[in-house]
């Protein structure tokens, strides 16, 4: 096991109160495996990703749980130990490449910075390595001497991918890597990520609100909502055999990039306020299948089949749920509570 996250809680301070952004999240990552975190904006997936590198904003209120990498808890390490792990073992592809690079240094300077912070490596060796990666992602070598503002969005994203790979990390975190790009480039980048993954053999944690992106690239998927995991299973099971109404709803709501036409059904309503999370199931207010028991007590994550966890107490009624969920009226008739 490469990475193990146990009972992670991350809370933020705001002027209106403490936001419980991530509330008791646990998962693990094996070598060579891709994990997808899918959920709508504000569900906490970005927070989970950033917490792995211990990147917290100034208004952090509470962090508990463990993030274990190679037997050490990242959350408890000294700053020096953390610095050694950052980027070298675990790196990140940012959401918006346009803002992720320092505008006053060239691409070359910034990628070199990543390399030279961690390894004693000569300039020519470093250059060779970078060239190799540039060719891999399809960037012209001449672009190295350019400044970030001289590259297009797609090129910048590729440059960021190179920067994330250059230290040959074991884990790559990709936080909404395609959200800021147009669809054509998005497809392009996704293909490259897949190819790279075959070649590089690093593990990835990919977060996205677009479930089709996750479907294309990940082995295991965690569906996140309002700071908690709603469902956690292999990609095949999540898409072929979903147990949580939210998962089902998500799949209905997204167009498939491959093009099979279907009617999109939106999930009515908004995610709950995380300053005072509602008692019981957090999705209940928008769920067409809720019962009284759903709001009475917080539902736990249970194993509905081997290696498949779901936070829904109505898993026994799953066949009926699936049948009704494919019908538009089910979702439209939902009364928000």
């Amino acid at each position, binding site marked *: 096991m490469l990475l193990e996250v146990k009972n992670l809680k991350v809370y933020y301070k705001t002027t209106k109160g403490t936001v419980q952004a991530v509330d008791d999240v646990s998962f693990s990552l094996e070598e060579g495996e891709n994990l997808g975190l899918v959920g709508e904006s504000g569900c906490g997936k970005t927070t989970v990703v950033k917490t792995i*590198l211990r990147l917290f904003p100034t208004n952090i209120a509470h962090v508990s749980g463990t993030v274990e990498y190679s037997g050490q808890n990242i959350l408890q390490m000294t700053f020096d130990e*953390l610095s050694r792990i950052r980027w070298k073992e675990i*790196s990140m592809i*940012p959401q918006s490449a346009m803002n992720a690079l*320092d505008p006053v240094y060239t691409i070359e300077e910034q990628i070199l*910075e990543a390399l030279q912070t961690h390894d004693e490596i000569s300039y020519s060796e470093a250059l060779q390595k970078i060239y190799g990666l540039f060719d891999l992602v399809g960037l012209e070598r001449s672009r190295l001497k350019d400044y970030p503002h001289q590259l297009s969005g797609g090129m910048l994203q590729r440059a960021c991918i190179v920067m994330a790979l250059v230290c040959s990390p074991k884990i790559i975190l990709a936080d909404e890597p395609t959200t800021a790009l147009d669809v054509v480039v998005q497809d392009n980048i996704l293909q490259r990520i897949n190819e790279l993954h075959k070649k590089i053999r690093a593990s990835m944690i990919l977060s996205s609100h677009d479930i089709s992106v996750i479907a294309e690239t990940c082995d295991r998927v965690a569906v996140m909502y309002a700071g908690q995991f709603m469902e956690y299973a292999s990609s095949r099971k999540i898409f072929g055999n979903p147990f949580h109404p939210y998962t089902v709803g998500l799949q209905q709501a997204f167009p498939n990039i491959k093009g099979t036409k279907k009617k999109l059904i939106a999930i009515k309503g908004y995610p709950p306020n995380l300053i005072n999370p509602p008692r019981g199931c957090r999705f209940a207010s928008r769920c067409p299948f809720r019962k009284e028991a759903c709001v009475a007590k917080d539902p736990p994550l249970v194993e509905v089949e081997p290696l498949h966890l779901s936070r829904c107490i109505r898993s026994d009624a799953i066949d009926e749920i699936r049948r009704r969920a494919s019908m538009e009226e089910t979702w439209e008739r939902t009364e928000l509570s």
Partner: protein
Amino acid sequence: MLITLFLLVTIVFLMFRFLPGDPLAMYINADMPVEVQKALMQRFGLDKPLHEQYLLYLKNLLVGDFGQSFHYGQAVIYLVAERFWNTIILMGIGIGLAYVMGCILGALAAWKRGSKFEVISIILTLSIRSAPLFWIGIILIMIFGMWLNLLPLGGIREAGIKITSTFEKFFSLDFLLHMILPATTLAIYYMGTPFLIMRSAMLEVMNEEFIEIVKAKGLKTWQVIFKHAMRNSLLPVITMLTVMISFVMGGQVMLETIFRWPGIGMEIVSAVNTRDYPMAQALFIMMGVIILIVNFVVDLLYHYLDPRVTYE
């Protein structure tokens, strides 16, 4: 930029011409012998109509002819040149120090947002900035010159010392000792502005995404602060210099007066007091020129500081 210079000298021309009293007093002192007066009138066309005088004035400026100093009896241009270097060196070092200290402190204050350090440094620099420069100088003279008797009270070097070379002029220990107090006064006083600007620019930069990525790359904290956050905050700080320099010249006047530093600041007060108009005029123009040079240098630095800025 040359237009500004042109307008500046024109304004000086008009300013000094509209003296309450005798326009001739600009170049001629009644104490001078009659032949000299006549010769000067000839040279500066003081008996000719205004527009001809103006053209002659410009022509003389180009050649560097600023007239004769009433007070010293020598060609103004040489007197100004000597004092120019005294001022530039002191000003350069003082302002340089102010900027370096201000930037570093400002970066630290921004990094330690909300800490006691930040609050104290803001109050301190603001308070110093609210005092007159000469008062800060007097306080320093009182402490270090008079009570502790550590440093000389003024002047540029010990009286009566023989100077054998230009090197000795500016690189001797004596010069250094004399320079410490005035340079420190300048540095402490002007530190406030780059400090405040660096701090507010940093606060904005620190929220940018690339700073987080730089942290994620595993860089040490000081590298994040200085190599990335501060570097991106430099542009507004440096551009502020173009605004500040106009006030800095005034500051030089006060500073040099207090410390008896023979530069163009002290000289301009003396020139105005002794009604040495050629000197006053030339010194004023010189100050304008220095301001223009600083503007020019900042313009050059622009592109280096921010690659996104292109020249038109």
